[in-house]
Each structure stands twice: as C-alpha cells, then as structure tokens.
C-alpha cells in the first residue's frame, strides 16, 4: 500500500511542475545563500582565531602577574627557560615559545611611531606557528641587526625592505636606550595589534639591548588544545598569570558568540519564510484536489493513507530543494574555500581591521545536517493545517460540491 502511496505522491508532486519547481528553486537558492554566508563568516572568524593563535597567544599564554596591566619588562617571568622545559614535558603540549616585548618609539629619518619590539626565536616560532607564512615582502631574517615589521606599521613609517630604523625605549636599568635595525621583511599576521605596532628581532639580541637576563621572558606561549592542560598549568604556576586564548581575546569570544546568534536568527527567519512558501503551495495543491480526496475517502481509503501521501509530497519537494541547495551551496562553499571573496579594492580597510583582502570561507558538515533537519521540519510542519482540512471533510458533500 505504501509503495502505491509513494507513487501517487511522486506523480502529484509533479502534476503542476512550474509550481513545484518554483518552491524547489526557492528552497535551493535560499539554502545555498545561507550556507555561503555562514561559511564565509565562519571562515573569517576561524582565520582570525587561527592566525592570532599562531602569531601571538597560542592556545595558552603565561605572563608574570601584573605584566598584562603594566606592560613593563620589570614584570618578566624569571627563569622562563626552565619553565618552558618543564611545560614541554607535559602531555598535550605541541610547542612552546618564549618572547620578550617592550614598548617604545620607532623612527626613520623622517617619521616616527609608537611600536612594540618583540624578541623571538625564529626557529621556534616556525615550529610554533609557521611564522614564515606571514611574510608579505622580503625575507624572514634577523642577521646583521635584521628585523621584521608589521604591515600597517611599515605603511605608517613608509618603510621598505632595506630601510633603517631606530627603536628607542627604556631598558631594565631605567635608562633610555636605542638600537638601529634594518627591515628585512614585512609581515601580515592579520592580528591587528601586531600588524600595526610590532617589530620583531632576535630574542638574544633584544635581551642584550634591554639588559634583561637571557633566561627571562615576558611571555610563554603554548600550543596544545587541551582544557586539562590549562587546568594543570593554572595549578602548577599559581604565582603566574596563566590564560587561555579566549580569556586573552574576549573580543574574539564575543565575535564567536555574536556569529552563533546571527546565524541562528538568520536560520530561523529564512526557515520561517521557506515554511510560508511551502505551506502556500501545499495548501493550494490540496484545495485543487479536494474533490479527489473526497472521492478516495468515499470509496473507503483510510484517512491515514491520504495523510501519508500529503506528507510525502511535501517531503519530496523539501528533499529536492535540499539536494539542489546543498549542491549549489557546496559549489559556492568550495569556491569560497579555495578562491575566497576578493575584496582587494578595500584591502587597506580590511588590513586595518585584521582581515585579509581575500576572505576565505570554511565548510562544516553541520551546515548541511542542520539545514536538512530544518527543511524537512518546515516541509512536515507546513502540511499540518492542510491535513486538518482534509480530516474535517465530509466525502459526500465534497463530491457533490461544484468545483
């Protein structure tokens, strides 16, 4: 019996092909657009998080108490090298780096700007976050007082590869000290703070310049996604400030939360409108066939079979729309993942906000599963009212009624 019902549902779905096709196109277009927008926005946030982790905080960062408030080398972690060795032995740790930072004035012969100098070990940074991938121009090298500068800072100071810079700051003894550096590379991390403020040099040379002990550091950054690891580090180093990525970046946490809210609202509104669209078509389709339903009820067909047939008709439309939307959406998502949305004409603005000029999307299986659930639900719910109308039918009256 159900095989026959399926056959009837299939035939009825395409009795009015233009109408059915319009609903399928509506579902497919709205779903593919929704998937593309979701993938694009998630891709933006994902890229921001990933690059922030690789260039700055890692999954977990450790500072001396008060350092984040005071930003002063006086608040360095004593014997950070020993702490680093200990952390490397812990389970779940992928990479650990030490960094030294100091704020000061960066000048060329013509321009000056506020900057923070970052002492890093290039080999370790490469293991930690593939530092060389941030390179936009020149090369990553600290040889012969070489340095690497953030793209926005380079724009502010109008420096190019080979330009000479003077960085002045207060050293550990409180004296104003200056160091001459040469720009070897320009990097874009898409971390807004680093791109607009940071200049990188060799950590050992920076220790010498600042007069700080070579085993000290202002930051220990750790890669290793593990809540347990965070808990262990917090309990092992209670005299230090141990923070997870999201604790250090409340803005990104808020952006993630806002993205979830935005996606949910978008989803709800779009699905409500899709529901109205399917409902209209199903309702009219039932009204068109009201005599037909009266006749089949009159010759003894049970109501549950008619109900099943109508449900099937709606689900068939939903599934077709879903398949169309999923295919179109997948094509859009693959394009956005591989080629991205090119906004090069707004590159200055995007770089200022810590985004790349080409914004790449991301693909998650959950986009497709959630949408499938929503479209099938909308299809099923949209037939509830029309079905009630059939249930109340008096077969004889309907057959006698003028069409």
């Amino acid at each position, binding site marked *: 019996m159900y095989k026959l019902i399926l056959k009837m549902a299939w035939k009825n779905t395409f009795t009015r092909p233009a*109408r059915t096709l*319009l609903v399928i196109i509506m579902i497919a277009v709205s779903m593919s657009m929704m998937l593309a927008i979701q993938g694009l926005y998630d891709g933006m946030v994902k890229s921001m998080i990933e690059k922030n982790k690789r260039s700055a905080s890692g999954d977990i960062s450790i500072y001396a108490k008060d350092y984040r408030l005071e930003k002063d080398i006086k608040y360095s972690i004593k014997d950070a090298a020993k702490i680093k060795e200990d952390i490397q032995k812990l389970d779940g740790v992928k990479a650990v780096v030490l960094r030294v930072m100091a704020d000061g004035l960066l000048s060329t012969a013509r321009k000056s700007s506020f900057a923070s100098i970052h002492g890093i070990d290039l080999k370790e940074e490469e293991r930690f976050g593939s530092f060389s991938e941030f390179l936009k121009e020149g090369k990553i090298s600290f040889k012969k007082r070489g340095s690497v500068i953030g793209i926005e800072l380079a724009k502010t100071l109008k420096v190019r590869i080979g330009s000479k810079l003077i960085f002045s700051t207060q050293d550990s003894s409180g004296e*104003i000290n200056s160091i001459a550096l040469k720009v070897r590379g320009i990097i874009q991390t898409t971390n807004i703070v680093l791109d607009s403020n940071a200049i990188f040099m060799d950590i050992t040379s920076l220790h010498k310049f600042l007069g700080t002990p070579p085993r000290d550091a202002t930051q220990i950054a750790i890669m290793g996604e593990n809540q347990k690891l965070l808990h262990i580090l917090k309990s092992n180093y209670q005299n230090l400030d141990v923070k997870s990525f999201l604790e250090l970046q409340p803005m990104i946490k808020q952006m993630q939360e806002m993205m979830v809210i*935005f996606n949910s609202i*978008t989803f709800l509104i779009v699905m409500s409108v899709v529901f*109205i669209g399917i409902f209209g078509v199903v309702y009219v389709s039932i009204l068109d066939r009201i005599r037909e339903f009266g006749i089949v009820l009159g010759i003894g067909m049970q109501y549950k079979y008619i109900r099943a047939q109508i449900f099937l008709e709606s689900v068939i439309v939903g599934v077709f729309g879903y398949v169309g939307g999923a295919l179109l959406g997948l094509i859009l998502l693959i394009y956005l993942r591989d080629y991205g949305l090119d906004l090069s004409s707004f590159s*200055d603005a995007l770089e200022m906000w810590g985004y790349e000029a080409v914004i790449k999307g991301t693909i998650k299986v959950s986009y497709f599963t959630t949408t499938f659930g929503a479209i099938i639900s909308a299809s099923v719910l949209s037939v509830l009212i029309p079905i009630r109308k059939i249930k109340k039918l008096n077969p004889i009256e309907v057959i006698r009624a003028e069409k």
Partner: protein
Amino acid sequence: MFSFALKNILFYKGRSITTFILTFVSAMLFVVFVSWQDGSHNSMLENSLKIYTGAIEIYHKEYRDVGGNEYLIRDAKTITDKLSRISGVEAFSPRYETYGLLSSKDYSSASMIAGIEPNKEKLLSSIALSLRDGKFLDENSGNCLYMGDKLVKKLRLSIDDEVSFVGGASDDSFAADIFKLCGIFKTGSFEFDSTVSFVNRSYFDELMYAANKASYITVKVKDLDDVDRVNSEITKALNDENLESLTWKSLMKTMVEAMEVDNVFGYISLSLFLVVIFFVIMIYGFINVSSRIKEFGVLRCIGLSRQKIFSLLFYEIFILSSAAFIIAVPLASYICYYYSINPIVIDGIAEMYKDYGIVSDEIPFDFNMWTISWNIGVIYLLNSLSILYPYVYINSFEPIEASRHV
C-alpha cells in the same frame, strides 16, 4: 483596471494577506537595518572628527607620504590669512606635531606631542571638553603638558609632576625640556589617550624652533555637508602646487573604506532575507494567477490586451505593497527616529572593540528620509519583479485555450 485589481485583492484574501505581511516584514527589516548600519558608521566618523581630525587639513605635499622636517609648512601665517577670507570656514589653527620620549622619574614612554593654540583648539576639537583632571592649556600655560589618561597612568604621573621630553626639533637638531603635567584628558579613543600630549604652541615653537611652521593646518567648516565646496575654494585661494588641502574623506580614507566593507557584508546578509521573501511573494502570485487562468482567458477573449493584463497584475502588487508600506514606513521611521535620539547602549562595547577605534558604548540609528525612501523603492522594485514570471506564465496560454482551462 485599478478597481478590478482592488476587487481581486479582496477576493483572494490568502494571497493578499501573505503578500501584505511579507512586504511589511521586508520593509521593516530593510529600513531598520540600514538605519542601524548607517547610524553606527556615522557615529564612528563623527566621534573621530570630533576628537581631533579636522574636516579639512592643509599639508605640504609629501608630508603625509614621505614625512620629515623639510615638508613642514614654512609660512603658516600667509595660509591662515587666506583662510580667514573664505566664507564657509568657521575656525582654523596650525598644529605642530612631533614624536618623542616622555619620562617620569622611573618610567618612559613614546608620545606624540602636539603644539596647539589652546583658544582656537576649543573651537576645533573636543580635547578641551575631554578634561578629566587639572586644567586645559591657555595662552600663558608655558611648559604645561595636557596628557591622555592612559599615558599618564603608564608614566605613573600626577598633576604638577615633572616630565622630561627628548625629541628632534624642526631644524633636525636635538630638543629636550622639562614639562609640567597640568591637565589630563580622556577622549575614549584608546590609542589617542595612550599616546598623545599637548603643549601651548607659543612655548613649543621656541623649543622646537618652529615659529610660523606647521605640520598641517586644521580647518573646521560651518556646514560639514558643504566640505567639498569649501575645500575647492581653499585650494583655489592657496594657489600653491606644493600644498594640498584634504577633506576628512581623504584623511580618514581607511575608516571610510572599512565602513564600505561593513556595508557590503551587511547587504549580503540582508539580500538573503530579501531573496527568500521575493520568492515567496512570487510563488503566491504564481499560485494566484494559475488558479485564474480561465478568468484571464475570458478577459483576453473579450478584448483585453496583454498590456492590460500586465497592468492588472501590477496594480494588484502595487496596491498590496503600498498598503504594507502605509503601516511599515511610519513605524520603521519612528523606530529609526527614536533610536537616533535615544541610541541603543551596549555596555562595554567600546572597551571590547577599542583597537577598532570604537569610542562609545552608544549605537545611534540614522534617521534619513532619503535613505528610507530608497529602501522602500527597492522593495517596490522587488515586488514588481515578482509578477514577471506569473505574467509570462499566463501569456504562455492562447486566449481560447486559457478560457477552456480547468
């Protein structure tokens, strides 16, 4: 045709109610969303302009791109004399800016130090109004320093404390002095408050050997909407190819661009809703005409032209859209107006997004009748487009065939 369309609307209630509701929702969504987006952008720009950046700034060419003392304005007085004769100019003042290191007893920090004319600056920017402690500068302030609160905190200073300065003078010689902290300001802009200090120009000129020199001349115009006209008058009056007069649109190009990007993303999101609603309105229109094929066939048989059929469909959608707009426009306009004078406040948003130049927790809407009009125009257009396929569908039937349609 109009009354015929009206009768059809009243007869096909289901379609009419759905189209009405969806048009109402899309109009409300579009108008309120654009108002919120424009309002928050305008507020960011206005805040930035209010704090320090001028509506127009006059530079020696190359100063912004190359920099350096050789590109300072050498004869500021001649330019300011010309500015005083331009009608749209409300106030102006030459500023001398330099970077240097400021040190307290134990701490040092880099700072931008700007030599300003205190009385004129009160007319030009909100830095005087941003006073938090001590006093603002005046013409007799001498070596008084007016400093951002974050920088004060960084240097651990209190009012009347001494601060040493080391930097380069306008003739490239070494400049150093001891200043006294007289006032502390807080504009809300994180970067500005943690890096900038001000000194009375007459005192600073002596120290920096900068009399009659300026990094640039800032200009306030009487009417911001008139800025392009005033700027072209200034360029004409200056008549000097070594000088450039730039409006805030060029000075804050990156911020303006950033807002355009934000608009792009906003419209992408909004287009999703509009496309879905467009489809549903079209589907309901299509269902409606497909149940009236016979009626259209008869109308064609008795001599109604295709154009008249189109007019009939157009009138139907026009009446339904207009009815929705009659309610949506005043309601959406009221929401925009209300939130333009009573901005939404999200506590902590300025602190959260301080790196992005957000200085206020308030998000005002923009109330602009022109914007509301074009928003409604777009919905009208979309609704009108939704009748195209139903119209093509009806015309795919020959009149006789349609009149016999069951």
